[in-house]
């Protein structure tokens, strides 16, 4: 039911973990529904230099988190904001229809982390 790409990211997820003193942290989803994604960003000169994630969820939730972190690493904040769930699905060679919401969650997690980063910047 999952593409090889999904299984590859699920089996060897990239960028798992936390970042101490992260510049932005975003958490979306809830345990009730069975999906939580948390993304940590390290930003230098408006560029995402490092990113980590933690996810509670199904295979698709883990794979979308993993690929989303890969897709935004090294990108500017503006570029990262352009990330769509559709791009995440395409990068994974597709997701089964009931799992598309995981890609939406991944997009939202990235945006929440960037939002948090911007809030912290404006308070500085």
């Amino acid at each position: 039911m999952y593409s090889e790409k999904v299984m590859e990211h699920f089996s060897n997820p990239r960028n798992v973990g936390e970042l101490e003193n992260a510049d932005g942290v975003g958490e979306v989803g809830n345990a009730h529904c069975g999906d939580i994604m948390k993304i940590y960003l390290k930003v230098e000169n408006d560029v995402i230099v490092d990113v980590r994630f933690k996810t509670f969820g199904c295979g698709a939730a883990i794979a979308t988190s993993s690929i989303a972190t890969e897709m935004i690493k090294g990108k500017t904040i503006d570029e990262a904001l352009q990330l769509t769930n559709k791009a995440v699905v395409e990068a994974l060679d597709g997701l089964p229809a009931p799992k598309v919401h995981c890609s939406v969650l991944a997009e939202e997690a990235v945006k929440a982390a960037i939002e948090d980063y911007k809030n912290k910047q404006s308070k500085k």
Partner: protein
Amino acid sequence: MSTAKRIYMDHAATTYTHREVLQEMLPFFTDYYGNPSSIHQFGREVKKNIDIARERVAKAIGALPEEIYFTAGGSEADNWAIKGSAYANRKKGNHIITSVIEHHAVLHTCEYLEKEGFEVTYLPVDRFGMVSVEDVRNAITDKTILITLMYANNEIGTIQPIEEIGRLAKEKGIYFHTDAVQAVGSVKIDVKQQNIDMLSLSAHKFYGPKGIGALYVRKGVKLISFLHGGAQERGRRAGTENVPGIVGLGKAIELASGKLDESVARITGLRDKLVQGVMENIPYTRLNGHPEKRLANNASFCFEYIEGESLLLNLDLKGVAGSSGSACTSGSLDPSHVLLAIGLPHEIAHGSLRLSLGEINTEADVDYVLQILPEIVDKLRQMSPLYEKVKG
């Protein structure tokens, strides 16, 4: 690489067909192909074997052969028993009693009947998944025509107090149906002693083929027909018989009941070792279902802070097949209705794993699972934002 391993621990989903069963079935595809309704020798020789299968099924559950009706499986048997008896007894009343942890073949049938004007009481269960006989008694009204409660639960393995409920139903003159799809082949059943009026069973749960099951209907129970047509099954279930399936069901149930005690003892030993090993080695874990009154082959757990589908996929990558009641595997937004009914919060119910053992499983299989499972659970927990809060 360990990926070459193939360990099947999903026998509650389905079993393989026993070779001995298959051998008995095969001639009925190629050599004995007559229509059992035909009067010629081709028909007669087949009819005789259907009778033998019917006797074998009857004997296994303490019924009379003429009380056994072959169906396409457990779901058809459940549908027929519930709708058939509800419609046949509508003049007597419109109330049905069931439980919240039934299989969907029962639950959705009851929900359908509610739309048809029937009233259904869905009894709760305790934290072990047990229905209370007192709750059944209190739910009975003068309109109650049917009590339908599963013999043993497919997800958590809990075995219900069937004999007590049967006695109560008999005392009140109410039909008692039990979905025994998970129980037949694992539990000793005697429909007369247990006052069961109708019982559903399915061959593929006890090493028989898929697509064949049976409904036991006690003599005298009023039931309308479900499939109209020819006079097969004494005019109550039309359609040319699935002869190889029927023969396979007969052989499978005979084999299963012949070695029931021996098989239950062995599988209980393996199951207990598995449960003990998991509970001792993996923290934040719960055993679902009743600690003692449970199917011999059922081990159902919830691992907190992780999600069931990712657990299953990881086990699958290591060659182990299990199942889960997480939302992602149930195809809906909610985790299993059974796990919620025993009082588990959503986030814990999402982390369920059912390992159901069978004849082919060995002590080495259990050792292997006990070796890989703690690592998998830990890997997923390390990845889980819920777990970091626990560790502080």
